[in-house]
């Protein structure tokens, strides 16, 4: 039996590129079809009926028609527009960072239902008062899990002995933590404090709303961010583009606080 010509799916809009005069190519992340690309016709015109339902960072119910090359969006209805998130500069930037990671770590048509759930949960969490830095760390760690890069945080990746409560090392290349004795085997490892390791382990095992209630010092938060950033850079073999913007915002917040 041939596949139906029209179909409907839930989706989060994770990327858009301009096409022609008034069209866009959208990248949608869906629960059952994975990442798909589709053409949305006329959405750059002010009177487009679909444009508002197909903006970046929107959770929508999308109707599509199969095309020879790309599918075409025929209709769309917002499920959640994440309005609190979109009216805050920092939160929008955090959310853009999460969708960029999803876009980078997934292949077209590769179904990953839990990852869709994680992304949706994270965006809801960002709409609420919480420790958003930890929300991002939680998102990164669980993203690694779901795409097959779960870092080993329980035992040394080289000698497989349980880790001792001392400053160990995190090695992006080996995909986990090294004990001080195995330091020589991976030259690009960087130090990981006892507290940082504890938080990472804890994040791997709790749920998101618990995770983003934890209070940690700015120094520890920064350390965790650097560790994750190093691992991301190793896996993607490049920088995540939106981190530059996150840094700009943080820099600005710091100068404003000094004034």
């Amino acid at each position, binding site marked *: 039996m041939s596949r139906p010509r029209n179909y409907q799916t839930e989706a989060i809009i994770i990327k858009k590129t301009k096409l022609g005069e008034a069209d866009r190519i959208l990248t949608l992340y869906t629960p059952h079809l994975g990442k798909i690309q589709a053409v949305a016709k006329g959405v750059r015109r002010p*009177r487009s*009926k679909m444009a*508002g339902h197909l903006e*970046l960072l929107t959770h929508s119910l999308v109707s599509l028609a199969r095309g020879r090359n790309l599918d075409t969006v025929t209709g769309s209805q917002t499920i959640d527009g994440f309005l609190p998130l979109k*009216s805050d*500069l920092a939160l*929008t930037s955090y959310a853009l960072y999460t969708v960029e990671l999803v876009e980078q770590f997934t292949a077209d048509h590769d179904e990953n239902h839990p990852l869709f759930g994680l992304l949706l949960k994270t965006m809801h969490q960002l709409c609420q008062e919480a420790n958003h830095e930890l929300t991002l760390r939680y998102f990164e760690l669980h993203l690694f899990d779901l795409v097959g890069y779960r870092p080993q945080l329980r035992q040394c990746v080289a000698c497989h002995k349980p880790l001792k409560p001392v400053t160990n090392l995190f090695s992006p290349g080996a995909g986990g933590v090294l004990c001080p004795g195995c330091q020589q085997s991976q030259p690009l490892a960087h130090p990981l404090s006892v507290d940082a390791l504890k938080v990472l382990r804890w994040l791997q095992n709790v749920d998101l709303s618990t995770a983003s209630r934890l209070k940690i010092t700015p120094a520890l938060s920064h350390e965790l961010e650097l560790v994750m950033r190093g691992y991301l850079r190793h896996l993607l073999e490049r920088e995540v583009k939106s981190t*530059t913007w996150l840094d700009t*915002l943080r820099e600005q917040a710091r100068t404003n606080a000094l004034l």
Partner: protein
Amino acid sequence: MNQEPKPTADAVSRLIQELNKLPGIGPKSAQRLAFHLLRAPEEQTSLLASALLSLKQETKLCSVCLNVTGADPCHICANEQRDRTKVCIVEQPQDILALEHTGVYTGLYHVLHGAISPTEGIGAGDVRIKELMARLEGGLVSEVILATNTNLEGEQTALYLNKLITPLGIQVTRLARGLPFGTELEYADDVTLTRALEGRQEL
């Protein structure tokens, strides 16, 4: 590779090649346009050619507002009648055309030439914010109107500029976001409707 005889004159295939580089013009459209121009009166083609040449030679960016202009400063910045205490911030020079067409706005402009888009790696340094801040420090401006697009990038840019400009003691306003003229309510999205409700006005 042996040279096959060309099916048409070199001049024609050169034009086809160049037209093909334009956005939205594929090889067939390029061919159609090229042959249309070949058949058109010479007057029309030379007008087109000189318009193309002057496009680059006779335009520059206004040193004040960064709009595309023939003379520097542009005719809007040079116009004494315009309200110098208001600056309207837009993403593209084309946006000025649309706003001027309404005939309602009498202040000045500033063109950013883009919008902040973190996922494409476009940060604050890649749009013309520095020029704007230097201009605002002059102290003449009392109101800044943010007229960036109402999509995510435009909103982000507006929120960012608001953070930068408010500490200077300048009033920052944003174009109202609501229902466009001629739309049907049932198709409106949540964000637009929420904003339209928040910004409702007495008749």
